């Protein structure tokens, strides 16, 4: 049934969900959008970080704090992943992206099974004071956990936007995204910069994974639902744009929530991929693309 109130509800909640989608996609916006690495492992890394947050939750550690604790670990993991990718695919050149895609799918499966073997297939949740409660703003009930994710998402994209615009390394990363060859001619080593950037992308995934387990219960194969969402957001944003990622996330979030309330949950999985197909067909450079 259509009603304006339902639509308003959907838009408000969808915006929050959308900011959360932006947060889980930012890592991919860096690794795929800026560095052209076909990192389909990104969603699996999110889930891995969620399990990390769940483990730390056993010691009464707040999930967001847990995400921050996991960041350095994931930074190192990201650097290791990129090193392997670079040595085996980028250096060899031919068909790097396609073989790389197969490689990252393989890693994804290994992570999935690793989690299943270590923790089983049950759903996992975490506890925190903001989980399970909700507040009313202008007669719209909003779960507190969504607000927590929303605020963190805004903070994360804000900090990263500052980093990419104001700091030397951040600008170097953007330079590598624009023209690797020119950077080499300036005497900088693009590989080391990309390695650093991939580390950041993975570290951001750690924090986003903590947000994921705040927003919903996590199971080992949850990453498959997020392959579509994250790639949709990143491609829609236009590769590598931070503010674009936020807008694209919100578009996806609102679209999903509206379909969810009008037609039911069984149609939701197709939304991200349909949007993705339309964008790829009509405007492959994305809404805010170069």
């Amino acid at each position, binding site marked *: 049934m259509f009603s304006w109130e339902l639509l308003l509800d959907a838009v408000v909640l969808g915006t929050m969900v959308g900011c959360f989608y932006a947060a889980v996609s930012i890592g991919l916006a860096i690794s795929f959008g800026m560095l052209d690495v076909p990192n389909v492992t990104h969603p699996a890394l999110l889930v891995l970080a969620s399990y990390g947050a769940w483990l730390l939750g056993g010691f009464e550690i707040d999930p967001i704090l847990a995400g921050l604790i996991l960041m350095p670990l994931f930074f190192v993991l990201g650097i290791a992943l990129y090193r392997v990718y670079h040595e085996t695919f980028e250096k060899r050149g031919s068909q790097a992206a396609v073989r790389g895609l197969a490689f990252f799918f393989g890693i994804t499966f290994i992570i999935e099974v690793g989690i299943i073997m270590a923790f089983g297939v049950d759903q996992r949740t975490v506890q925190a004071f903001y989980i399970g409660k909700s507040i009313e703003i202008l007669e719209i009930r909003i779960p507190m956990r969504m607000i927590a994710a929303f605020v963190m998402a805004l903070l994360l994209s804000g900090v990263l936007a500052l980093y990419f615009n104001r700091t030397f390394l951040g600008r170097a990363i953007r330079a590598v995204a624009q023209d690797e060859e020119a950077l080499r001619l300036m005497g900088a080593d693009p590989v080391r910069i990309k390695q650093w950037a991939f580390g950041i992308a993975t570290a951001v995934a750690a924090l986003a994974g903590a947000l994921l387990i705040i927003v919903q219960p996590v199971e080992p194969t949850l990453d498959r639902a997020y*392959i579509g969402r994250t790639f949709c957001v990143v491609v829609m944003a236009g590769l590598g744009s931070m503010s674009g990622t936020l807008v694209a996330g919100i578009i996806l979030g609102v679209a999903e929530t509206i379909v969810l309330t009008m037609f039911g949950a*069984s149609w939701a999985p197709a939304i991200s991929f349909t949007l993705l197909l339309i964008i790829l067909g009509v405007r492959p450079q994305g809404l805010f693309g170069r």
Partner: protein
Amino acid sequence: MRSVPFLIGAAVFLTAAVTAAFVVRNEYVFFAGFVILQFIVLATAWNILGGYAGYVNFGTSAFVGVGIYTAVAVFKYAGAPLYLQMLAAAAVGAALGLGVGLLTLRLRGIFFSIATVAVTIIAETLITNWKFVGGATGVQLLRPPPTAPFESYIKMLFVVVAVLVVIAVALARYIQLSGVGRGLRAVRDDEVAAECSGVPTLKLKLLACAISGALMSAAGAPAAMYLQFADPVSAFNLNYSVSALAMSLIGGTAHWIGPVLGAILLATTQQFLTVTISSEVNVLVLGVMLVLFVVGAPDGIIGLAKRAWQRWGRR
């Protein structure tokens, strides 16, 4: 005349499969054999587009799922026999293949791959919302009695898929050796250059997509009767996509024998592990083998064999 050894090989394979169906008592052999043969078809079909033309299709699961559900639909609607189910699935698969082929107009490389994943999920969602074929909960199917010479339905399915293997491999081999294959290789190496030198790239890509899609859906179709059950989540499981791709890459994509070798190696290992350990280990092996091969042996078993052969020849 170079087709003679191949024809003899195909005849020997078919005879062996039929003989086994009448001699071997243990039903389990056919349960496992069916899956292995099915993967040979899937990998071979995948390689026609992915290996020869270089368009990496991550939508094998879409074709398998659509094949399974076409079989379910015609069976539920008209009680169609197995061969009609497979023909219908092949027709729908070819149509879907043409659709995917049209994507290649605008999308290349990794963007094409992502788009095929999208096609999979969209197809799955449509089926999930189609009440006639059971929706999200799936549908139970009652097998009719097996046709005359076969004493059990599983043995019949096994032989039918064996025939499909021969058709798929013969098609892949024909494409590889004919002008179509040369054209597809030109597309893979440099599409613009191919187009400029008068290769009808779009026509060839559409043809490759349609054949590949028809074979994949036809291979998927008997799975409905094999399991006597179909549900969207397992019919469209991403594992089909990654398996087909992994088997081709592991075997080697340049030659038709590559996907066959890769499928035999990987599917047999997986069947063995499923029985002895668990189905999770299966997926782990898939992941580990995929990573090992793309990192360590980018040209697959064929590449390894070639290198070994050259080293041996130099000595």
